[in-house]
């Protein structure tokens, strides 16, 4: 299972494992988290996976139309041969972007089908997009269902039911034999917990349904573990007042990251961060089938959105070359070595 976000998939030691849940804490304006969701879905289209998209604000069709276009570049890196399918000349060539900067490294050996790169300034061609089977769940169009004695309030209950139905019907849980080769279901759930989902966990200190979202995530992870699927859930955590709730939600996920955008904050004009648009915090890494987990070299990651590409890389602070700094160190040096030199600040040694 691979993710195409340059740097993120390397950071995550080779991508998202099937059966796991990725939690993304949205940035304040939901611009970058939405982009991550679109990358996730676009990679699903390119890899031929099936998609399930649930949203309460924007219609899933709108989100699908905004998926970025994959880059079909002829440039190969380090002499790796371009794989092309001789039986089907229309398949895309998988491109390796020439890496002229060290990214976050892992020990994973490179694979030809590791991931794809996207041009965010262009949207995916409808012909390509329509090759993927997409199931959608749009909160505002769902008829309210009386859920009786379920611990999950609507619309989480119908959403969970809808996901279970798709998994069963399309055979991702192995119940019905799949007609094609084994495929994977990618689930993208946008802005869970927001008021548009009928949840008040973002509105109140002590929400009436403070366990609705955590119960939903628990059940969702149960579904993921028993099927060939992977889910990305975005949550507007900046609206959740109750920190205990956020802690529980993170622990109920496998991987958890948070996006912090500089836009509108004092960091936007801070010269230290001028190369970046925001920080990416790693809240939790998965422990899958192992006692120890891959801990990355650094947890200081930042992201930037250039005209064509969204990249995540290790945070580099520029060297401090200001004159003030060097002058201070010379003074200290002078004071330490010659106490009689009272007025003369620049001593030659």
């Amino acid at each position, binding site marked *: 299972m691979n993710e195409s976000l340059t740097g993120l998939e390397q950071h995550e030691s080779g991508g998202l494992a*099937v*059966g*796991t849940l990725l939690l993304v804490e949205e940035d304040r304006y939901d611009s970058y988290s939405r982009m991550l969701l679109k990358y996730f879905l676009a990679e699903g289209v390119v890899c031929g996976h099936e998609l399930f998209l649930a949203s309460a604000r924007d219609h899933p069709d709108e989100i699908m139309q905004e998926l970025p276009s994959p880059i079909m570049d002829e440039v190969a890196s380090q002499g790796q041969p371009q794989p092309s399918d001789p039986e089907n000349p229309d398949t895309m060539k998988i491109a390796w972007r020439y890496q002229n900067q060290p990214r976050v490294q892992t020990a994973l050996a490179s694979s030809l089908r590791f991931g794809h790169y996207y041009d965010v300034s262009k949207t995916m061609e409808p012909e390509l997009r329509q090759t993927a089977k997409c199931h959608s769940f749009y909160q505002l169009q769902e008829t309210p269902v009386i859920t*009786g*004695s*379920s*611990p*999950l309030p609507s619309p989480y*209950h119908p959403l*969970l*039911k809808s996901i*279970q139905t798709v998994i069963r019907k399309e055979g991702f849980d192995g119940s019905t034999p799949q007609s094609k080769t084994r495929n994977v279901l990618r689930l993208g759930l946008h802005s869970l917990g927001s008021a548009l989902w009928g949840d008040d966990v973002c509105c109140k200190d*002590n929400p009436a349904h403070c*366990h609705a979202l*955590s*119960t939903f995530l*628990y*059940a969702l*992870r*149960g*579904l993921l*573990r*028993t099927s060939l699927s992977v889910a990305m859930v975005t949550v507007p955590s900046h609206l959740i007042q*109750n*920190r*205990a709730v956020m*802690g*529980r939600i993170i*622990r*109920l996920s496998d991987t958890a990251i948070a996006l912090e955008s500089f836009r509108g904050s004092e960091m936007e004009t801070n010269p230290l961060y001028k190369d970046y648009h925001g920080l990416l915090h790693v809240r939790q890494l998965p*422990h*899958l*089938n*192992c*006692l*120890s987990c891959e*801990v990355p070299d650094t947890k200081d990651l930042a992201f930037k959105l250039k005209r064509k590409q969204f990249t995540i890389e290790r945070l580099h602070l520029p060297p401090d070359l200001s004159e003030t700094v060097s002058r201070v160190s010379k003074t200290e040096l002078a004071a330490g070595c010659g106490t009689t030199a009272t007025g003369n600040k620049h001593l030659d040694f």
Partner: protein
Amino acid sequence: MHHSSFIIICLSIYVGVSLAQAREKGQLVFLEGLKDSIGAILQEESSQGTQHLSYLRSPGAGLKGLFRFVETSVSQNGARDDGESWGPPVLLIDDLSVLLSLGVTVGAILDFTLYCQATVCTELQGNMVILVRCEEEDVDDDEEGANLLQRGLVHQCNLALHVEGLPTGYCRDIHGQMQVWWRQSGETMYNPRKIFHFKVHDKGASFFARGTSSAVL
């Protein structure tokens, strides 16, 4: 695809036990709450089959169904191949704080552990091992706080292992420290706590006294 309970699998490989065989013989009863949860949450009527997961449907009602399941499982007098009955039971719970996320109250969870303790430890002379996750800080510690649960459990138990990262931050050779609180029988005071450092490997962990990591010596 089942990532859960890998630790138990590791331990069993370590001591040379086959869990699948144990399950078949009736020696191991394995309740996989996560896998069975979806059925309990989504079904319209509660059926006999999911009584032990009744807390998923009505978390406010407590864990009586779950306790009945535990009681039945540990009281079964199944026989081994050689005709002898099994030894005292061991109850392993991983992880109790998930129940807080599902809306079960701290009081209900502590009731459940007390009932289990009475049955498994006192009545049947067995042992219980419970895993609980704590909040990092005492944040908004309402009635449902994980820290409150932890304090209640520490009060009930005989041996508490508190595992955390190093206060100085991440280190490659020492993954964290473990504090041991041990209430010896007959004494009302805890012994002074002991602190160990540990490093986690692929299928195990090594423990050593502070300052004696092989990377340091």
